[in-house]
């Protein structure tokens, strides 16, 4: 309370102006925060929210449920259930991958939609958007930071499934070298690295959807609307992707390569699908990020 800054300010605006402003220019310690400070602040805001942790906990529950079910009911027959499920009983490291396969169609996009749809619309509905903008955060700067926070959530969500899956798998099943799709084997250490790469792949897969959510979020002051629209699009894209008559459109769907991460379990790992997926997502980010930027930059903030 009795630090020099506080006395300068409580002593009156004029004193604070005389002491504070020139010092802020001269001294390194008093320099403004910049983009990183805002990013750190917004990340902290996301992860200080109970809702965020509830979604992360729900994601963590998926590998736990799969592991417990197989532990209690015995191994699944080959070819039945989601991909990799039949491998779990033999090698606990497959729990995380199996859980990702289960979570990717609906549950993971749902949580990502909640976070991405909330980015701008959530602030607008609270009224905090106007205070962030007159701070001034800068409209594009705020949008960039909000998108980065949504991307961080994608990574946290995918890694949560992988890490919790690996830990639970390790606890309940034997763990050994991973047999790859191409027949060879890799050590437990390299296997774990590949699992992390799969987590990264899934996180990247969610970036296009996040950009769509970001744009939806600039269109409304009702966050639930933006969240629902984004989640619905994720489902619709997968339905379209399942209709052979619409094959010509498939390569352009942001969901088209969501399940191609198995290439990372080949020997040597094939990064082609990782790259193709990243390019596809980058296209969606460019389009919807651009739309979101245009929309927020020109919009009247009336909330």
């Amino acid at each position: 309370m009795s630090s020099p800054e506080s006395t300068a300010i409580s002593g009156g605006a004029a004193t604070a102006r005389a002491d504070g402003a020139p010092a802020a220019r001269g001294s390194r310690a008093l320099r403004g925060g910049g983009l990183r400070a805002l990013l750190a602040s917004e990340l902290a805001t996301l992860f200080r929210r109970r809702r965020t942790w509830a979604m992360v906990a729900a994601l963590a529950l998926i590998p736990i449920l799969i592991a417990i079910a197989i532990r209690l009911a015995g191994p699944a027959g080959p070819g039945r259930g989601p991909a990799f499920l039949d491998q779990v009983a033999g090698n606990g490291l497959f729990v995380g991958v199996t859980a990702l396969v289960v979570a990717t169609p609906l549950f993971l996009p749902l949580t990502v939609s909640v976070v991405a749809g909330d980015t701008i619309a959530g602030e607008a509905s609270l009224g905090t958007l106007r205070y962030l903008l007159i701070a001034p955060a800068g409209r594009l700067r705020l949008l960039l930071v909000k998108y980065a926070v949504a991307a961080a959530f994608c990574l946290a969500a995918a890694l949560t499934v992988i890490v919790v899956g690996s830990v639970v798998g390790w606890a309940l099943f034997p763990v050994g070298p991973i047999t790859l799709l191409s027949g060879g084997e890799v050590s437990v250490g390299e296997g774990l690295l590949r699992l992390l790469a799969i987590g990264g792949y899934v996180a990247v897969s969610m970036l296009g959807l996040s950009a769509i959510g970001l744009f939806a979020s600039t269109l409304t002051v009702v966050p639930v609307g933006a969240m629902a629209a984004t989640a619905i699009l994720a489902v619709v894209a997968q339905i379209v992707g399942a209709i052979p008559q619409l094959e010509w459109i498939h390569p352009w769907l942001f969901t088209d390569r969501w399940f191609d991460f198995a290439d990372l379990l080949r020997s040597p790992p094939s990064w082609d699908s990782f790259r193709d997926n990243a390019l596809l997502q980058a296209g969606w980010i460019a389009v919807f990020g651009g739309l979101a930027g245009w929309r927020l930059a020109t919009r009247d903030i009336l909330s």
Partner: protein
Amino acid sequence: MTDLAIRTDGLTKRFRAQTAVDGIDLAVPSGSVFGFLGPNGSGKTTTIRMLLGLVGATAGSAQVLGTDMPRGLDRVLPRVGALVEGPAFAPFLSGAANLARFDAADRHAAPATRRARVAAALDRVGLSHAARKKAGAYSLGMKQRLGLANALLMPRDLLVLDEPTNGLDPQGTREVRSLIRSFAADGTTVFVSSHLLAEVEQLCTHVGVMSAGRLVAQGTLDDLRRSGRSSIEVLTPDPDRAGAVLAGLGLVPDDAGADPTPGADRPAEHAAGGDDAIVTAPLGDDPPAPEALVAALVADGVRVRGFEVRRTSLEQRFVELTGEGFDVVA
């Protein structure tokens, strides 16, 4: 450095067919406490939003602290503290965390001093004890104070306060008033929008009045009062004769049209207890001196038991300018 903290030229905002702000020319002198008055829906908040770059103007221009808005937004806004249309906070963060968050959004605010500045701002509005409490659990008055604290995070040259005493108890209102006085004493320009006329009358050096999107009056508080009508009141048991004398001197005694008492032959009087009545008459542009009026009344045999010159209160002037009742412009 200009001597106007805020200046607008023909500032206009249209939302589709509706004109919310209609070509206003604001001039807010540096160092003034400027009361921005107007009924609900008269365009005050839209004007403030344009000044802060939240809403784009349809036509006209605005300068804040000598810089064109919204082009100079990044340079100007760090020097402006604002409370716009009520405080707003993330309910799941503490009061202090909410302030730190808004502070982090300002790239000119030094992270090294953030904690100290947040504590000082909370202290200044009397919220230190609730710094760690979640903002969602704050009372309306506490939120209002937290909003004011947010405006005080950095040294400011201009404070824009939209209804700053909303939701505050009388004690809190007094504190906010004395806070605003202390800003003004430091040389900070304060732009306060309010519908509480008594408050503006006590606080402001300058006033602007909005009505239906137009700025219908602007100037110092004294100018605005002076431009209003003054009137006289005569307390007398001889209302008819008093009315006649006043009429003979060029005054037009008020019709007591709204007076429910029967007897239409006594139009210019109000019942005042006993056999006394009150005769009122507005003073025109070049009125006779009050003492001359009294002398004329007495000379004519009117029993003058009371005489008063009434200057228009700001409230009367306000109603004259903006119309009576709930004529909210849709």
